[in-house]
């Protein structure tokens, strides 16, 4: 008999069901000085793991003006190594200090045998991996004493041994661990193209009540002869196909806090704000459409 997972709450405060943007170092000063009209900000947790200095200085000041989400890149939650207690400690310290509304990690692993590849590597979708992820997510939530969100990643390979589609794996993980979902709509699209599944089927299978956040970003198309592979590069505007999929997601899940992610070739802050505005416009149109 499996014990019912403890249900943890999110952090204090709320994140408006409005678009936010990723906070990146080159924009610190401009964000502080111009206070762009976005609903919230998301920071990469590990960038603030240092003991002091400018990153923490700026985050503290910026936090005073915006709701915050902390998005982890490196916990390696799907690894079969023991959870990295130093990493978790640093994360917990950061959470105590900045009181983020949302804390998220990835459905992936990045280390084994103590060696880190520092990349979001895919898990096989097996019963064994599912049981492992449920255990690990529960351990992290117990340690942090709060709910975490798990994000689906872009993937470039599938394992022959997988027995479940990703969407079923994710649905079971949220059900059994009590975690929330950070649904990356761009990642769904990228993986759908790379592996040939229907992204609409994916969206339909996701338990709506678990979705707490959505990510949007740009990707890059690479060609090998006749074949294409999409890479999740976060280096440009959101593609029209991904906006269309986002619209479907809004129809299904309602307005959800949505983040514009941009990492490589970071543009002017204004471009991110403009992308956020487009996301808000889609939510607005769907709301009116539903009312009409």
């Amino acid at each position, binding site marked *: 008999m499996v014990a019912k997972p403890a249900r943890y709450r999110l952090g204090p405060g709320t994140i408006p069901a409005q678009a936010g943007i990723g906070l990146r170092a080159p924009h610190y000063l401009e964000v502080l000085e111009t206070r762009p009209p976005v609903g919230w900000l998301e920071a*990469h947790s590990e960038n603030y793991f240092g003991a002091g200095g400018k990153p923490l200085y700026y985050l503290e000041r910026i936090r005073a003006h915006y709701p915050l989400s902390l998005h982890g890149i490196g916990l390696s939650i799907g690894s079969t190594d023991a959870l990295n207690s130093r990493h978790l400690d640093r994360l917990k310290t950061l959470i105590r200090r900045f009181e983020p509304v949302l804390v998220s990690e990835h459905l992936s692993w990045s280390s084994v045998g103590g060696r880190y590849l520092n990349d979001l590597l895919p898990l096989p979708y097996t019963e064994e991996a599912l049981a492992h992820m449920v255990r690990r997510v529960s351990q992290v939530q117990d340690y942090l004493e709060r709910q975490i969100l798990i994000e689906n990643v872009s993937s470039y390979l599938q394992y022959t041994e997988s027995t479940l589609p990703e969407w079923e794996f994710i649905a079971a993980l949220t059900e059994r661990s009590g975690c929330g979902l950070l649904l990356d709509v761009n990642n769904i699209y990228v993986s759908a193209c790379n592996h040939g599944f229907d992204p609409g089927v994916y969206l339909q299978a996701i338990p709506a009540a678990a979705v707490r956040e959505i990510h949007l970003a740009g990707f890059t198309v690479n060609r090998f002869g006749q074949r294409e592979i999409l890479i999740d590069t976060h280096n440009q505007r959101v593609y029209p196909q991904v906006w269309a999929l986002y619209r479907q997601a809004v129809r299904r899940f309602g307005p959800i806090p949505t983040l514009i992610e941009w990492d490589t070739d970071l543009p002017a802050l204004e471009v991110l704000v403009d992308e956020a505005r487009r996301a808000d416009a889609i939510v607005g149109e769907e709301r009116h459409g539903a009312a009409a």
Partner: protein
Amino acid sequence: MTTKTIVNSAIASAFALGLLASAGSAVAADQQTEKCYGIVKAGKNDCQTSAHACAGQASKDGQGDSWVYVPKGTCEKIVGGSLKPKA
């Protein structure tokens, strides 16, 4: 002077500044001091998946193309030392 005298006068010097002058405040440093103002290093944990992720260049380095493995940067502007490896 004995070491003890030196030690005492050194410690005492901190008080000569006056307890009012708060330690750690900005003091004009030596002229040659290099100050790195305004530098905010980018966070290295951003998801910088490179657009070159499948260009294949990281595949089998160390084979052929030995010309790549000669330093070719601003080290050419550094003179006066031995440019040959020590035997």
